[in-house]
């Protein structure tokens, strides 16, 4: 086993999948010679050649559209979009085609495509480089949305995503790329898409988080008997794990860095309100980003929730 950060873990996942399955191809801007702007695909072009690690022109819509065609033909394309903000120019392809291919062909065609992209704030980057608009993509049935919270899970979830016959939007928390190190073994890792995990067991309050907010939630939970759930797959999401935990703890805090209004926290809160409201001992609390355009570096710290804010919310529901 080797200690790795998330960049290295993702690179390993891609390398193993390219080795294992000749149908896997990578494509995107700068993924080849340059090894990706975050060095995520470093060495793969040299190892697998330009037909399997494809440097494309600057055309997000074509990258995803071409990948859809490849997927429908039987390949397993892994498309990289440099930042989540730049998928906006390709939403037509994602929403109108990737998500609907199976449905429109009544199951005759499907779209085993993975779109990998860094997302989220806290890295002092320019406009559109810190978007956290995952809820928007979760609102499109047919598209899976997966968000790892640590290197081990990044590798495991990416491999599972590549092997999934449905289109997956794989969101990589940029802030975590080099923040955490973890033992990441070679070979297949046992995870299933659509399942959450208990990242830290506890009995008095349930905290649900994903991606970059998981690390902060774990820090915030340290002083409490709090259970932290790493949601991992946002769509379809694992309501059972959340409900079972809330039935035990009676309290729920949901954490995300995306804007509050219409955020995925609302879906989780509604699910708990529908199915476990009688177990609640306190109102549900959301700790989220503000209802604003993600600010440029000088003001971005105001927007992304802090561990202190999360701890404050935990204390509040415990004291209710």
């Amino acid at each position: 086993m080797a200690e790795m950060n998330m960049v290295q873990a993702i690179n390993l996942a891609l390398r193993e999948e390219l080795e294992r399955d000749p149908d896997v191809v990578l494509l995107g801007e700068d993924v080849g010679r340059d090894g990706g702007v975050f060095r995520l695909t470093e060495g793969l072009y040299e190892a697998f050649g330009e037909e399997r690690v494809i440097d494309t022109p600057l055309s997000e819509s074509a990258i995803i559209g071409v990948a859809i065609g490849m997927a429908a033909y039987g390949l397993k394309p892994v498309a990289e979009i440099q930042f989540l903000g730049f998928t906006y120019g390709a939403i037509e392809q994602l929403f109108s085609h990737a998500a609907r291919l199976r449905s429109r062909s009544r199951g005759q065609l499907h779209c085993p495509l993975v779109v990998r992209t860094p997302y989220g704030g806290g890295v002092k980057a320019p406009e559109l480089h810190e978007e956290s608009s995952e809820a928007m993509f979760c609102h499109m049935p047919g598209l899976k949305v997966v968000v790892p919270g640590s290197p081990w899970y990044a590798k495991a979830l990416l491999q599972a995503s590549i092997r999934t016959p449905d289109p997956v939007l794989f969101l990589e928390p940029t802030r975590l790329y080099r923040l955490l190190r973890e033992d990441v073994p070679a070979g297949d890792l046992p995870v299933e898409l659509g399942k959450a995990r208990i990242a830290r067991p506890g009995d008095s309050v349930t905290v649900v988080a994903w991606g970059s907010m998981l690390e902060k939630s774990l820090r915030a939970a340290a002083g409490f008997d709090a259970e932290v759930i790493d949601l991992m797959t946002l769509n379809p999401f694992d309501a059972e794990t959340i409900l079972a935990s809330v039935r035990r703890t009676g309290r729920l805090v949901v954490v995300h860095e995306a804007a509050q209004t219409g955020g995925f926290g609302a879906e989780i809160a509604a699910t708990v309100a529908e199915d476990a409201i009688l177990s609640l001992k306190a109102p549900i609390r959301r700790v989220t980003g503000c209802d604003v355009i993600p600010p440029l570096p000088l003001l971005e710290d105001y927007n992304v929730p802090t561990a202190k804010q999360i701890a404050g919310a935990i204390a509040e529901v415990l004291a209710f």
Partner: protein
Amino acid sequence: MSKKIIASFTVSRLEILDEQGRVDAELMPDLTDPDLVRLYELMLLTRQFDQRALHLQREGRLGTYPSVLGQEASQVGSAYALQKSDWFFPAFRELGVFVTLGYPLAEIYQYWNGDERGLLCPEQLNIFPICIAVGTHIPHAVGAAMAARYRGDPIATACYFGDGGTSKGDFHEGLNMAGVFQAPVVFIIQNNQWAISISRNHQTAAETLAQKAIAYGIPGIQVDGNDVLAVYQATREALQRARSGGGPSLIECDTYRMADHTTADDAARYRDPEEVQRWQRRDPLLRMRRFLADRGLWDDARQQQLETEIDARLDRAVAREEATPPARARDIFAYTWTEMTPRQKRQLQQLRDLRELDHG
């Protein structure tokens, strides 16, 4: 039955000032000596601003910054042809245009320092915010041009983007719309040969970018982008055509990005150093300086004096930027909509309560 040629096209390239500083007198634009000196001064200001920005970034006093080194002529030359009433739609590497139009220098540093207030455009200028999503502003320039014509305003819009930008759907959709409606817009490609690590040849199989205009029924031309006089002349003609009802044009400035893509990039990973050296000999400042010197308009003493003056000006701009009172938390809420929502007001209050971060 027959098979015959029903249309054929040519692509032209304009060069006026060569690497030795010699000009083609026939093609010389109608510019006075003070204009010629001014063009050089603006290129030098652009270059020194750019170098200062790179220093500041290395010292941690500026965020990620895209250098414009090598592209001074295509930016200053084209912008010099603009009139104050024209509208300018930048991508993110158009420092030379901002400088030429007289945008406050401190605010340019401010923007690259991650402070939105740097995008506050002075009232007398018509500049759209810097566009980070590549190529997505192209249709906006077309729309503004159509609006200006509808209003009867005798202006043109100038839209800048890179060779990478020509691969985006918005480029094709924007040019198509401009051609159909004969919008008074000039598209100015900064073909600096690279879009991060993807070379121009890998961006398109077309031989030139100028020829892309042909498919949309609009005039296109390639110019030596390191020749400030050729760029000026081509842009002036295109703007005049636009302002006088002649419709849109496309100009490909054939130039080179001498630096890394941004301060977060390492071009040595994908670029041959020999190629960089080859372009060094085509330095846009050097050839203009030779030309001016031959005309008796420039010498080493003037060069030294101007460099010192610019340095002092940049000192003042940086000092002004760094003395700006910090932005306030309120600012991230204030411009989402016309008015703050009740929920935003609560979020702002919570920020103040929880973090006591507000300096304002």
